[in-house]
Each structure stands twice: as C-alpha cells, then as structure tokens.
C-alpha cells in the first residue's frame, strides 16, 4: 500500500469517526460517504471497518431511549438505509445492506389503536448476511448466518442459516440442502 493511500485512509477514518461521533463505541477503520444521520438516545456500538454511504440519500441510525444497535466488524451499509431501534438490533460480522433497506424493531404505534404505544421486539441478523436493496426487516425478525435476502423482500420471522429468501413476506427460494446442522 502506497503512503498516499495510507494517508487517505487515515484521514477518511478520522472523518468517519467525527461524523459518527454520536455512537457510543466505534471501531477502527470506518469509512463514510456523505454524512449519515445518527440520533442516539440509547446505545450504538459499531465494530471495526464499518462502511456507510449517505449519498445520494442519507442513511440513518436512530435509537430510542431504551434502544440499542450493535453492529459487528466489516459491516457495509449502502445509502438510504434506515435502522431504528426501540429495544435492540444486533447485526453480525461481514453483513452488508443494499440501498434503501429498512430495519425496524417496532411499529411506532399499535396496529389497531394508533395512539397506543408500540410493542417492540428485538431483531437479530447473523454473520455474512446480505440484505438486498429495498428489503424491509420488521420487528421480531431473526436471520441466521450466510443468508441472502433478495431485493424488496419483507422479513418478519425466523430465517434459518445458509438459505436464500425472497418475496413479501420472504419465503425460501433456494438452499434447504445448504442448511447447516
């Protein structure tokens, strides 16, 4: 690696840590494109080599007072991604998000009574998962490791490891034979 490249990386990482300064923990080597929107009333922990794009549309990480977002190492987030936590969102290592993906662990209000408070449920996304562009991950979703979620799917339930899912709501399209264990 050339010295110019090293300097560029160092500066990029410093800029990223400034732009993500509302996060409680941020690992080394992060990179941002544009300025992501971070509103942290709870806790946000980010691992090493985090990459997040905010151009042309800002990605946002938002936590409520009791919300937690935990992001593993080498996670890549494309532009326009929304993550909003009222209890907890856990994201494993090497996971990537396509543009405009949405991850929510609450509906913001009751389904029947719109004035009622939301009933949040934790979201867990495993390692080596790819979340396709425009996919919506709803409250209570648990996604295993090595999963590919096709673009524009909606995930709201448990998805086993090593499969590919697609659709509204997301169904298995391939990989029952790949399911480990």
């Amino acid at each position, binding site marked *: 690696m050339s010295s110019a490249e090293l300097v560029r990386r160092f500066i990029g990482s410093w800029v990223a840590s400034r732009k993500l300064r509302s996060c409680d923990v941020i690992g080394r080597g992060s990179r941002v494109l544009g300025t992501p*929107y971070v509103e942290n*009333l709870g806790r946000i922990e980010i691992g090493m080599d985090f990459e997040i794009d905010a151009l042309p*549309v*800002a*990605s*946002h990480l938002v936590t409520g*007072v009791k919300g937690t977002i935990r992001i593993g190492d080498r996670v890549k987030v494309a532009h*326009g991604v*929304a993550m909003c936590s009222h209890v907890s969102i856990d994201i494993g290592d090497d996971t990537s998000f396509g543009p*405009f993906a*949405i991850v*929510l662990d609450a*509906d913001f209000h009751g*389904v*029947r*009574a*719109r*004035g*009622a408070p939301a009933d949040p449920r934790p979201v867990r996304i495993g390692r080596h998962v790819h979340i396709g562009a*425009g996919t*919506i991950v*709803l409250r209570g979703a648990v996604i295993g490791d090595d999963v590919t979620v096709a673009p*524009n*799917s*909606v995930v709201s339930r448990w998805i086993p490891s090593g499969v590919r899912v697609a659709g*509204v*709501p997301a169904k298995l399209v391939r990989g029952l034979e790949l399911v480990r264990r």
Partner: protein
Amino acid sequence: MHPLVQKLGRALGANDRSPTVLVRKVARNATALVRATVVLRELDHVGARARGFGGAHVVNAGVIAAGDDLTFGGRFGVVGLASGAGATLMLGDRVTINYGSFLSAVREVVIDDDVMVGPYCIITDGDGPVATDDARPIYIGPNVWLAARVVVRPGARIGAGAVISAGSVVEGDIPANAVASGCPARVLRIHEGDHGRGDTESGKTRSPVARIRRR
C-alpha cells in the same frame, strides 16, 4: 427544569429526562411549521398547523388540497405531491406522510382523515405522468395505515381503518378494518376497529375531503 417546560416537552413527545432532547424536539417542530408554509406554497389549500420535517417536491397542474395538521417527513427522501392537469389530490385532516413517499394524481386521489402513509410509499392513480385510459381514481378511507414501501395501484379503494403491511402492492378493494399483506395485497384478517386517533365523523370535519363528499 421548569415543570411547564417539562409538560410542553412531554406534549411534544420528548423524553423529559434529557433537556437537549426536549429543546431539539421543540425547535424541530417550530422549524417544521415554518418549513411547511414555504414548501407547500404551491398547494391550493393547506389547513392549519401543517408541519414538514424535510423537503417536499410539489408539481401542481390541477388541484392539491390538504386539511389541518398535515405532517410530512422528508429528511431522508423528499416527499412528492403531484397533480396533472384537471386532476385532484385531496388530503384529509391529520394525515401523516413519511419520508420518500410519492403521491400523484392524474384523475383523482382522495386520502381521508387520519391516514398514515409510511416511508417510500407510492400512491399513483395512473401509470404515467398524464391521464390515460387505465387511470382510475384512488380512495383511501379514514384511519388507514399504509406501512413502509406500500404501492397503491390505480383504482384501489381501501376501506376505513385498514392496515396495509410493509412492502405490499394494493390493487382493487380492501374492506374496512382489514389487515392486508403481499403483492397483490390479500386480506389476512379483519381487526375490530379501535383507533384512538381523532374524530372521523365526516360531517363534523372541515377537511376538503369532507367537503367533497358532501357535494
């Protein structure tokens, strides 16, 4: 903190333990009131207390009217409101439109009171920017909740209190108080309509939707 300030903060949904959050919420709401008047200046009618938490892109070649307490996001994706020549786009009272949504009319789109439109929803009554033969009016009843990224196709009629789940595509009729999902959206169940939000007696409201219905 002064108890009155705390009370005001709670009314605005702030966390009263943190003064910064409270101040931020109050400031944001104040800015939103001002921003809405600027951003929605192209509309033919805007009711009282419209708030805009981000930009909106308005193309008004027909009629666009909104009732009181309109709220729209736009911080992460601009809200689009469009009406073609001779078309009407009507929004009732207390309508909430989240960021990135696009509402377009080439004939007629009527969105009734207390409707909540989630992020990146697309509501168009035609398949293009001009009225074609397949352009059919859309009606969305009071208290409907469209979750994230719902697409409402031409000719859709959604009954009062219905819930359309995330990522659905709505075609045709959805009965009142239904919970619908999928593309195309199918009714999963009917919930008992208990919404604790506002009075939707159409005769009592002064919204443009109510006025149109009385005609």
